[in-house]
């Protein structure tokens, strides 16, 4: 195992769950990520903030290889998942992702949305998968919507279901790509509540967001990105009260 070129020894107690090294990404002429380094440990709640176009969403999407990195390495649980010989599908099962636009499957009921992947990919029985799904639905207060179709749900409900869909795979880390940006203001709270709950249960989370107050409250570390680079990483109180760089200072002045 250790002589495998794209694996390195991984101890979940001491090693970072995700280790990003010199991550590069280009879109045609745009150099979106210019060498990003970050270690994400078990139980970390990392909030990534920054101006739009700073590459924060691209960074997040690179973490589960929805965007293919053009350079650098991402080690997830000791495996370099940027290597093409790695079966990325297996590792994605352990990385839940929540999208800005929810992306629920409109042709399936809520229950089918939640159980399809566990049944097919983890070979769970229908009963087992549904029992687990119901438990999670109860946690987000939507157990009564199991038989609904996504277009019968409000935006906030859809996003809570989307979070549950990712949780049903029992992931080791949850990636959130601006989970509240497409929501009506009055529905933001219910989604943040679910995320707060997850953070309390020590779920490892990486969140790209514009919700600064929420970042301050929930984050264990806040990452500031601008122009494709990470400029600052700090615990929220330091991050928001004592920003080091001028770039972050001016950003915070604008958004706070």
């Amino acid at each position, binding site marked *: 195992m250790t002589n495998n070129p794209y694996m390195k020894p991984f101890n979940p107690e001491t090693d970072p769950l995700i280790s990003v090294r010199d991550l590069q990404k280009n879109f045609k002429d745009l150099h979106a990520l210019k060498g990003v380094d970050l270690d994400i440990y078990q139980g970390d709640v990392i909030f990534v903030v920054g101006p739009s176009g700073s590459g924060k969403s691209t960074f997040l999407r690179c973490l589960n290889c929805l965007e293919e990195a053009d350079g650098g390495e991402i080690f997830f649980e000791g495996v370099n998942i940027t290597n093409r010989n790695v079966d990325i599908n*297996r590792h*994605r099962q352990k990385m839940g992702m929540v*999208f800005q636009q929810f992306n629920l499957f409109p042709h399936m009921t809520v229950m089918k949305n939640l159980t399809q*992947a566990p049944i097919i990919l983890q070979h769970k029985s229908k009963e087992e998968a549904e029992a687990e799904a119901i438990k999670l639905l109860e946690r987000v207060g939507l157990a009564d919507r199991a038989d609904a179709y996504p277009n019968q749900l409000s935006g906030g409900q859809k996003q809570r279901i989307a979070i549950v869909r990712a949780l049903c795979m029992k992931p080791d880390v949850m990636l959130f790509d601006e989970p509240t940006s497409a929501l009506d203001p009055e529905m933001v709270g219910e989604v943040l509540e679910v995320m707060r709950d997850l953070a309390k249960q020590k779920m490892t989370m990486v969140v790209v967001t514009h919700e600064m107050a929420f970042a301050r409250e929930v984050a264990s570390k806040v990452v500031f990105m601008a122009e494709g680079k990470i400029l600052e990483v700090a615990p929220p109180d330091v991050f928001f009260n004592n920003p080091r760089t001028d770039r972050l200072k001016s950003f915070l002045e604008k958004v706070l």
Partner: protein
Amino acid sequence: MPDIAVPQFLIEFKDAFYLNFIKDNRWKYLVDGLSVTLRITFFAVLIGIVLGFLVAIIRATHDKVGRTTPLIKGTLSVLNFVCNVYLTVIRGTPVVVQLLIIYFVIFGSVRIDKIIVAILAFGINSGAYVAEIVRGGIMSIDQGQFEAGRSLGFNYGQTMWFIIIPQTLKNVLPALGNEFIVLLKETSVAGYIALADLTKGGDIIRSQTFSAYMPLIAVALIYLVMVIALSRLQKLLERRMRSRDK
């Protein structure tokens, strides 16, 4: 009993009807022809669907695929090229010419059932149109659906099968229905290889009775009824699919 004057045109109609359909069991030309038309259409539709989905998936995969090995990428490029040639040739030439080429050139020196030739010709032809309909359907599904599937750990094929194709199917149903209605009518050129389909059946009657009106109108009516029935079926299917995700 006074004579009830039967209008002259009714008498003529009755005579013509007798001559064209009853005498010498001429109606059999229409019934047998209809059966040929239906058989050709049915199997051509099957071939068209299989071929069309195959080509559409290859082309969409070629356009979409990101992370993969050079071997797969190369294979896809070759397959995509073959598909493009197929689409260009089939959509760029008349179906009658294709039918004649398949019969006289490809199977020129082989004894083969003409119905099979027609099924192949119309199936291969229809496949090209189905392919573009389905590919459009696949490409119209929001990229987020694809990403959501992949992010859960589904591989490309599973994402296609469980998430993209079911939604595509619903979107392309109206266009597919139209394609099959067109196909049903297009089989009327099967007479070019001396296949006695519905149209040819009517034409045979015309050549025997020297009356064009009755057999040709009958043929037209039969096509019309079938097309109306197919349209109804199509609407029914669409409604059922739509109500499912209400």
